[in-house]
């Protein structure tokens, strides 16, 4: 119950001086005794009046009763403004609560009884015992007048009691109609009085969010939806989906199509996406929608219903197909003046490591050259030029001067494919450059060319389907490295497309008894990518059969892990849909059963923040196992995958991982750095950086390797000077260990990815949306890193290219109505969480003003610094179309 407040506080207003002069020196006990005398004259009068009313209420004369009740109500209403202390009338009526209650019980049904019930309902606010819900009880028997007239606190209290009552009645299966009437009143009141969060909370409690639709208006729908979308992250399924559904409807109601589209994409509901298009008539806005869809990385086909005109549709489809991504990225690069190609040496910055820099070994090391190939590819990704692969080989040096041949055997695959990465998103130029390798008689080179086409086309779709046309015929090549190149290329180019033609050509490989294991593994992985998050039964069946067909020896192979992973990707983020497949996986050979189980679980709940699943996975990590069990690795990764979606869960996961690190077995310790890398991908948090830096010197070289790779991942595309320095020092610390040095080099390449213009974060649109293909790419790499020695340090280093799926420019590029880039001033600053805040709070802090295009770091947000234009999307990320503001006046 509310505590009896200090009389000092009660005696506010004009009489305060009097009261304080008398009271201060007295100790509390005396205060109680002499309460009577302490009261000011005014208070005393009020008290006597109230006592009189109480007496009169019990008078048999109804007239007197009525007058007394009316006066009492007057008194109470007049003083319910503030709730920092108990209002005086309520306080003075406290001793009489029991009397009035008793009297009310014996009254005959009448208006007066209702009136008294109203008053009792208010009195119960401070008097009723916890859980009695008397306030609600009296309210229901009362006259049911304007609920707001008793003040906010009363309404708030009532809302709480309704929620309790509702759950109770639900369990008793009693009717809730009377409650719902009250709820309607309360919601209406809250929505009018800037208390959207409370209205939403109440409606969530009584499971009737639809009511919200009637009450939102232009003034408060944004705050309401903001609260809805952010609370969805903390709700258990299926409530979260319901909440988002409502948010979508509200946005649609107020024609906030970009936001509606965002929610629709979050729900992965293509029907809703379509609805957004059909209900919007503004072509320019539709273009903006297309930009949003293209950033999300899903395959989306516009139909005449969405856009009637064919030419318009073609333009829009081009945007969805990302055909202009390369152009926009290069605009950004030119604006920031980083077009100049960088060599791996520019990244290693060995001259900063004095004394150790001097002339390297005179003979080429294949391992080091391979590392340089990757560094070169990642650093110059998408720029279309570099200093190793695209330089025209001059006649003097001939083909010996060609970097491609400075790589050994399978290294040539990665080298040839790196050309696809350098020309990323620029399909025309990419295919032209890669053409020369198609005629090579050297199988690894051909494989690299095929893979390069896939990388080059990553995220870009075209009517001609060049990737499928070029790679299709190599799927059944007799050389398995060529096959893998083609299969992996298709997986990357068509990730998320659910292309039936590819399925029909890849599925048979899975069940081909003669196919080598590595081909099968990559086929499963590619199918998983192409059908990511689709829950496609047929693909699942093929992979399951392939897993069942593996011999005992094959199940022990490092590459076998790609089969369960491919299966898991099918259910990425699809939660319960995985259950049937998870059941089937229990029948697998015990060698792979647990691994499969963990992978399926972690993929299905990836990005959901589901606490129960996090606990399940943690429990797995807590076990101390016999040697040879490898399923704890994916469990640790799974922990990160599930928890990565929102900040709180993320921080908790980081702390849990620290514990796991301390007490876990070796195979867990090896996965922890990778999990940390996933949690903070392209977001170098200092505490994680320190942990990884410590682990990078671990005595277990696999832990150190994982930590080094993760250092690269958390700094990916940031050019973070501190991580760059750490890696530089690691490069001299590990200069003798070729494997560790290779990892350091790769990590250095990651940190300077796209010369700092790219991000690997699968989250976008203010961290709300999770791009499934991007996550699939990262998770695949991490699973490969669980057995670094056999995969990345072995001959399958090209799995590093799976990261291309997650590579996106971290830019904000403004374009005008003709989609030509224009430069406008924007403020870029740290994003502030404004959920549940009243009014129009600042959304960024510590901002700087730049002119577009600008780079956005993790946790940063932009806002236009001019009124001259209106952005067509409230989420200022990626491509933003600006419309001139008709109301703008030059000053």
């Amino acid at each position: 119950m509310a505590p009896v407040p200090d009389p000092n506080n009660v005696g506010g207003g004009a009489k305060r001086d009097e009261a304080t002069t008398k009271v201060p020196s007295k100790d509390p006990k005396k205060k109680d005794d002499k309460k009577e005398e302490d009261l000011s004259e005014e208070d005393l009068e009020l008290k006597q009046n109230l006592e009189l009313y109480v007496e009169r209420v019990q008078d048999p004369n109804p007239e007197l009763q009525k007058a007394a009740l009316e006066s009492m109500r007057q008194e109470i209403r007049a003083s319910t403004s503030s709730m920092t202390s108990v209002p005086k009338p309520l306080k003075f009526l406290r001793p009489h609560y029991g009397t009035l209650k008793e009297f009310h019980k014996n009254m005959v049904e009448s208006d007066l009884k209702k009136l008294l019930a109203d008053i009792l309902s208010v009195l119960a606010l401070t008097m009723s015992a916890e859980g009695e819900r008397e306030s609600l009880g009296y309210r229901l028997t009362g006259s049911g007048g304007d609920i707001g007239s008793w003040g906010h606190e009363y309404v708030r209290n009532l809302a709480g009691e309704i929620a309790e009552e509702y759950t109770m009645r639900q369990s008793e299966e009693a009717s809730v109609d009377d409650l719902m009437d009250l709820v309607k009143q309360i919601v209406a009141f809250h929505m009018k009085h800037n208390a959207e969060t409370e209205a939403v909370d109440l409606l969530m409690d009584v499971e009737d969010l639809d009511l919200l639709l009637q009450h939102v208006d232009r003034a408060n729908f944004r705050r309401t939806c903001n609260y809805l979308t952010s609370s969805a992250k903390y709700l258990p399924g299926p409530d979260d989906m319901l909440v988002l559904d409502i948010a979508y409807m509200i946005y649609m109601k107020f024609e906030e199509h970009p936001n509606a589209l965002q929610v629709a994409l979050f729900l992965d509901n293509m029907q809703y996406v379509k609805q957004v298009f059909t209900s919007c008539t503004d072509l320019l806005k539709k273009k903006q929608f297309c930009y949003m869809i293209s950033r999300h990385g899903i395959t989306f086909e516009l139909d005449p219903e969405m856009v009637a005109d064919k030419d318009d549709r073609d333009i829009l489809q081009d945007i969805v197909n990302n055909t202009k991504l390369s152009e926009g990225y290069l605009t950004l690069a030119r604006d920031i003046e980083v077009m100049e190609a960088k060599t791996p040496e520019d990244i290693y910055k060995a001259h900063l490591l004095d004394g150790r820099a001097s002339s390297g070994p005179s003979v080429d090391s294949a391992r080091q050259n391979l590392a340089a190939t990757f560094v070169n590819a990642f650093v110059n990704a998408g720029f279309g030029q570099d200093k190793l692969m695209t330089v025209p080989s001059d006649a003097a040096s001939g083909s010996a001067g060609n970097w491609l041949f400075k790589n050994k055997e399978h290294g040539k695959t990665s080298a040839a494919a790196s050309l696809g990465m350098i020309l990323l998103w620029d399909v025309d130029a990419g295919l032209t450059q890669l053409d020369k390798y198609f005629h090579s008689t050297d199988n690894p080179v051909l494989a690299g060319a095929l893979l390069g086409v896939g990388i080059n086309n990553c995220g870009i779709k075209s009517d001609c389907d060049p990737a499928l046309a070029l790679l299709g015929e190599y799927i059944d090549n007799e050389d398995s490295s060529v096959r893998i190149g083609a299969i992996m290329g298709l997986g990357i180019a068509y990730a998320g497309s659910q292309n039936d033609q590819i399925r029909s050509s890849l599925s048979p490989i899975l069940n081909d008894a003669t196919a080598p294991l590595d081909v099968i593994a990559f086929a499963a992985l590619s199918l998983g990518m192409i059908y990511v998050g689709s829950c496609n039964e047929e693909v699942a069946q093929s992979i399951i059969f392939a897993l069942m067909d593996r011999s005992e020896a094959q199940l022990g192979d490092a590459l076998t892990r790609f089969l369960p992973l491919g299966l898991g990707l099918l259910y990425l983020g699809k939660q319960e849909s995985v259950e049937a497949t998870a059941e089937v996986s229990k029948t697998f050979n015990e060698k792979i059963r647990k691994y499969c189980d963990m992978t399926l679980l972690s993929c299905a709940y990836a990005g959901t923040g589901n606490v129960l699943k996090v606990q399940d996975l943690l429990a797995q990590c807590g076990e101390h196992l016999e040697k040879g069990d490898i399923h704890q690795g994916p469990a640790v990764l799974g922990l990160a995958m599930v928890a990565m979606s929102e900040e709180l869960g993320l921080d908790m996961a980081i702390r849990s991982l620290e514990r796991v690190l301390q007490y876990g077995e070796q195979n867990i310790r090896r996965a922890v750095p990778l999990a940390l890398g996933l949690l903070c991908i392209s977001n170098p948090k200092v505490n994680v950086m320190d942990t990884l830096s410590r682990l990078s010197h671990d005595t277990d070289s696999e832990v150190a390797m994982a930590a080094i790779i993760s250092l690269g991942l958390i700094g990916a595309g940031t050019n973070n000077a501190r991580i760059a320095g750490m890696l530089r020092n690691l490069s001299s610390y590990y200069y003798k260990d070729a494997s560790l040095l290779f990892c350091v080099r790769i990590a250095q390449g990651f940190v300077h990815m796209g010369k700092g213009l790219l991000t690997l974060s699968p989250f976008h649109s203010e961290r709300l949306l999770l791009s499934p293909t991007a996550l699939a790419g990262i998770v695949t790499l991490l699973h490969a890193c669980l057995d670094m020695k056999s995969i990345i340090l072995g001959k399958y280093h090209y799995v590093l290219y799976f990261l291309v799926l997650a590579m996106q420019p971290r830019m904000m590029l403004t374009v005008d109505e003709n989609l030509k880039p224009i430069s406008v001033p924007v403020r870029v600053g740290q994003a502030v969480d404004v959920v549940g805040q009243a009014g129009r709070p600042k959304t960024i802090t510590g901002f700087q003003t730049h002119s577009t295009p600008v780079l956005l770091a993790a946790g940063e947000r932009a806002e236009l610094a001019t009124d001259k234009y209106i952005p067509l999307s409230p989420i200022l990320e990626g491509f933003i179309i600006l419309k001139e503001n008709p109301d703008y006046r030059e000053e």
Partner: protein
Amino acid sequence: MLTVSVKWQKKVFEGIEIDPTLPAYVFKAQLYDLTGVPPERQKIMVKGGLLKDDADWSAIGVKDGQKLMMMGTADEIVKAPEKAIVFAEDLPEEEQATHLGYSAGLVNLGNTCYMNSTVQCLKSVPELKSALSNYALTGRSNDVDQTSHMLTVATRELFGDLDRSVNAVSPTQFWMTLRKKFPQFSQLQNGMHMQQDAEECWTQLLYTLSQSLKAPTSSEDSDAVKALFGVNLRSRVHCQESGEESSETESVYSLKCHISHEVNHLHEGLKHGLKGELEKTSPALGRTALYLKESLIDSLPRYLTVQFVRFFWKRETNQKAKILRKVDYPLELDIFDLCSEDLRKKLEAPRQKLRDEEGKKLGLQPKSSLKDSDVKMTDAEASSNESGESSTVTQQEGGSSEKGTLHMTGIYDLVSVLTHKGRSADSGHYVAWVKQESGKWIQYDDSHPSLQREEDITKLSGGGDWHMAYIIMYKARFVSM
């Protein structure tokens, strides 16, 4: 007749007509005219497939106005280089070692770090290596005893092993012969071989080598070790009481750097070490008197060894105590003022030349100065290695007969440091820090070689519990005239 547009590279060719009755090859020929890409290298993409030469247009289902995409270039096809590129990983183990830029470490056989570090320091002298390789296995001259011969051979083998191996070498054979020759190194304590003084090992080993590497002709000058390390001192012994004065010469293998309270720098220590007092019978006075001995350097070695006298016998505690005092030493040492008058005269011209050259480099080509001097150094080594012992002798005498010979300048560069860590000579840990030909510094901590920074080398000057220099070796800088 169908009309399609074809996209090739960044260009779009609009309105190309296709006659559906003709094979696709004809269409390709059309494109050849437009793009110059030969038909066999054209890849035309139609709805997720490639257009075959003999394809039937009706089966493909190309629509009027459709966009096709063509890939292909007329560029030269990349060919693998005729000469396969050799990678470090392909090389046999020995060759890989040479590409690491430094040689392997030595396994500690139980308190043998004193020996390991000595060997590593001495191994860094290429002239010693070549002298050893000339040492005939068979030709044991009569004046060399069996154990010395064996030790010399063992040294030679050990140096060879170190150069060939990538992994740490176990110096078992060498250790056995060393103990055979010098039984004092076999001392046991608690069943373990004791830690020994590296200086003793260094001196004994050099002495043995100098004995065995003496040319059979047994002339003084042909002593290779002496030619490399020997320092001739001319001392003036002076008795203040009687005013007697005499001079004597001696040859030592190392200069001592005495450490007293005034000594903060190597140079001061050396000066201190070259002055001494001794008591001897004065013929004039007929009794023992105090003589002052002042020594000056009369001839310079190619490799100047300096021993920091850090250990002394403490009578009170009956043990060898260590002076922890910090004594700085430079990377570049000039010992001109420790030289005798005669020698100074000889040095003046080369020094002037050196200064001129340096001035020129700094003034005119500041960038290439380092490189140039490196080249010169290697030249110097090459020539000396080829010409063998005789040439080193001429240089040592400061011979000025031929033009283009190399001259001493009195300036020395630090090449190796043997450090001790710990409080007593017979305990603690010895480590060698050796400068490679590439200019890199390597720390040889028994079997673990590791790269070090040059600035860290000068930090081994003592004053704490870190490794501190015990024996350091400088290499002479030559100038050709």
